[in-house]
């Protein structure tokens, strides 16, 4: 897949001297769903707003579909759609007027058939003549998506698309995003929700303190960096963990019949063989063994923690 968005050495410093983006470099592939994870204030929204031309930046360059966003801003911006984090809408306009207005801003001639289909796809058609202030939070979020898609963009930025929406609507949103991907739209979303990234993203980027800490395929990230959990179910409960096994940092459940061993898949020696051999020598009988992959959440937390520590050290 070719790179549709290239960000090179991007730096953004706010008036209060806060360095929101720090020599950030990132490439986005055409047609992928890219999830940008990061804690509050990491620079996620600043990055999106800078790419979209909403904020100025101090250093670096950005190209969208090979067009520089400063020199060729018309070509670059015309293929971008953005759904902001806040529910920012004009209160007194109807959905129909407001979505058509957005299409016009992007220099597209009116296409009422397309807008009708878009509103139907997003379950907004029935409410098209309602004023925006009359809509629920979830409906407003859909309107923002409709506005962002009104000019048929190739790249869609979603800034916290499922923030403060209920579970059902969240799943609906995921479906909408997956459908857009199938139509060939490149999607970049920021999120706090790790399960969201796990559910829909192809690649994941982790940002902290304005820097990209890591970018990788979601599956490979989990595989490469993840820790695994080995659950050892015993045939009979034990009183306590035998002394010989204490070096393995095992945990025991309240029923005293399952031992948990956490090991690093990256390490050359996982310690499983010696653990099982020690268990055998202690005369413990096994009932079952199972492994669990650690979640993206724990990977994310570990990386953010590491980056914070690095910052303190430097």
């Amino acid at each position, binding site marked *: 897949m070719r790179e549709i968005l290239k960000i090179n050495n991007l730096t953004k410093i706010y008036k209060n001297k806060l360095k929101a983006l720090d020599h950030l470099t990132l490439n986005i592939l055409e047609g992928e769903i890219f999830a940008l994870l990061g804690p509050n204030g990491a620079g996620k929204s600043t990055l999106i707003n800078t790419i979209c031309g909403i*904020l100025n930046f101090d250093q670096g360059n950005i190209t969208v579909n090979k067009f520089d966003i400063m020199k060729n801003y*018309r*070509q670059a911006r*015309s293929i971008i759609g*953005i759904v902001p984090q806040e529910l920012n809408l004009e209160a007194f306009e109807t959905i129909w007027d407001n979505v058509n207005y957005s299409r016009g801003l992007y220099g597209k001639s009116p296409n009422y058939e397309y807008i009708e289909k878009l509103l139907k796809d997003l379950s907004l058609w029935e409410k098209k003549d309602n004023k925006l202030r009359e809509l629920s939070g979830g409906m407003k979020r859909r309107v923002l998506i409709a506005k962002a898609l009104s000019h048929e963009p190739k790249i869609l930025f979603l800034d916290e698309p499922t923030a403060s929406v209920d579970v059902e609507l969240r799943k609906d949103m995921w479906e909408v995003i997956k459908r857009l991907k199938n139509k060939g739209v490149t999607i970049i979303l920021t999120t706090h929700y790790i399960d969201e990234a796990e559910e829909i993203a192809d690649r994941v980027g982790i940002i902290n303190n304005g820097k990209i800490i890591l970018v990788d395929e979601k599956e490979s990230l989990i595989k490469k960096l993840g820790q695994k959990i080995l659950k050892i179910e015993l045939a009979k409960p034990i009183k306590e963990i035998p002394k010989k096994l204490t070096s393995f940092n095992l945990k025991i459940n309240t029923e005293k019949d399952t031992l948990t061993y956490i090991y690093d898949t990256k390490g050359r020696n996982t310690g499983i063989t010696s653990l099982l051999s020690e268990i055998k020598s202690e005369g413990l009988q096994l009932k079952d063994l199972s492994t669990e992959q650690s979640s993206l959440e724990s990977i994310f937390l570990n990386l953010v923690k590491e980056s914070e520590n690095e910052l303190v050290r430097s």
Partner: protein
Amino acid sequence: MNWYGLRAIYLHEMDRMRRTLFQSLISPFISTSLYFVVFGSAIGSRITEIEGISYGSFIVPGMIMLTILTQSISNASFGIFFPKFTNTVYEILAAPLSSFEIILGFVGAAATKSLIIGIVIICTAGFFVDLHIEHPFVMIFFLILTCVTFALFGFIIGMWADNFEKLQLIPILIITPLVFLGGSFYSINMLPEFWQKISLLNPVLYLVSGFRWSFYEIADVSIFTSLFTILFFLLSCVIIISYTFAKGYKIKN
């Protein structure tokens, strides 16, 4: 040129006028009528003619200027301030629009609204006084030039303001006094010499004077001085906007 984008901003702003029709059109119509009743008939009947013109007719150009100046400023300042306030400005900034197109859309709409209001006032004045326009094309030219210039000025205020108080500050504290003291309701020849000289420092005087000349061929200053003053002010506004909005002053930072 993004014509559809320009059209979208222009029509979107004009639509705001349609939604607030009472406030936009009926309100200036009522207040103008009240001015005519109070100044034109009640007080005006006791004032002798000024340079051969009845007082009721004399105040028509000043009253039009008073209204279109304040309307141009408030329409344009609110036009850009409101999307900033509601944070909907993001989609205008993210759209493939140049600064020139954005300004043209907002200022064009604000100037059009003021122009419509100006025409409504002229028609309203026709009900109260015997209206006679010596130079209709010059009058229209002045009207359009004033609407555009002060819409640009309003746009600067809207861009600068970050709360409603600031939005009202300059119109209330500076513009309204300048308009009232700029010969809207009197000729500066009626003032003592000292205040005549002070009045010449008021830029609004030149607007009202030039505009009045187009009606009755009477003026406090030469028509060319009036024209030069408004063109100078227009140019100043264009330069300020070029150096501020285009660089994202108070919007993109």
